[in-house]
């Protein structure tokens, strides 16, 4: 799990959610690229991220694209965020004794407008959180930053600032994470993705 490096945060706000990742992809100590995508959209209301082994991040994101496309074709409606979370959980648990080395964070807005966040371990145990979720090589640093900075009922702009500061400060204390950041904020009417400029060391 610490071969390629990387980390994720998901945060809940007032009628909005945010998800942030770093951008580093490396092979142990050698950093290779600053553009590795770890956050993937499902639709306008749901985003998920995968932290861990690069190959499994890519394989799983392709699998989930396939599964959600099939869902849409079969059900003729968009998938809900809780349903998607269970889909991810089942997919991971299927490989219980030979798992994918990736830990997801899922954020989204339910059909009734309620914000939803959760994370999972590599075999699909869902952590339904009320405040924030973190995964990745800098998870301990992220727990500290989020606990200090998060407060309930943040509006979208404030949630963006909070999640960004938590990501940048925590990844600055981890050798395998960082090299920039990406933050996606989802509200009932918009989904906005921004890149963060951080320390490139």
């Amino acid at each position: 799990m610490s071969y390629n490096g990387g980390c994720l945060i998901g945060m809940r706000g007032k009628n909005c959610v945010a998800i942030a990742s770093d951008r580093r992809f490396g092979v142990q100590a050698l950093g290779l690229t600053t553009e590795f995508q770890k956050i993937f959209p499902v639709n306008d209301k749901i985003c998920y991220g995968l932290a861990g082994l690069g190959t499994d991040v890519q394989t799983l994101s392709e699998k989930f694209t396939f599964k959600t496309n099939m869902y849409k074709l079969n059900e003729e409606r968009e998938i809900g965020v809780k349903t998607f979370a269970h889909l991810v959980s089942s997919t991971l648990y299927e490989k219980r004794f030979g798992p994918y080395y990736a830990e997801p964070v899922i954020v989204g807005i339910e059909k009734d407008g309620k914000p939803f966040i959760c994370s999972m371990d590599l075999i699909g145990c869902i952590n339904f959180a009320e405040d924030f979720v973190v995964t990745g090589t800098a998870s301990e640093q992220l727990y500290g930053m989020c606990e200090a900075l998060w407060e309930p009922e943040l509006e979208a702009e404030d949630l963006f600032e909070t999640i960004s500061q938590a990501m940048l400060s925590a990844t600055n204390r981890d050798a395998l994470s960082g090299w920039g950041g990406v933050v996606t904020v989802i509200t009932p009417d918009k989904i906005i993705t921004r890149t963060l400029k951080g320390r490139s060391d």
Partner: protein
Amino acid sequence: MQVLIGIAGKDFVLTAADTTTARSIVVMKHGEDKSRLLNKHNLLLYTGEPGDTVQFAEYIQCNIKLYEIRNGLELGTSACASFVRKQMAESLRSRGPYNVNYLIAGASKKGEPELYWGDYLAASQKMPFAAQGYAAYFVMSTMDRYWRPDLSLEEARVLLQKCLDELKTRFIGNLPEFLIKVVDKDGVRIIA
């Protein structure tokens, strides 16, 4: 010890691969071409476990060719890279994984250059410049410093020469000869 380097320029990709085949302390052969042409505009360069490398590269080459025969379409570079990654990912958790690291260099007919880095674990990433093997520890920082978008072929050659000089100075392995190819809208050719 094996080295692959790729640099994407304005409308071409410049690639270099060492030409030494060695087993333990013995250099078995000079002049080995560590690449396979996937189609007119795409080149797959490989390093890794002997045997796995050629088997994997030729398997990919044949399947890309089959796609062309069946569909009458030349596959673009990102499609080739996706296909290679998928095959690598499927082999990873099978009885016999391919222990191959690769670079895919391609230029579309319009001349958009693309370079993909892929490792034996099936991670893959599009990069402006890339290296496989021990070389990466030496040349990535050289290319970080001197690469710009829109390099001309001459400027890219100068950058590549800087990288090869770096290896000559600082790398313990002796790599006397490199095979240098250019991939652009007219296809793939070897340059001195």
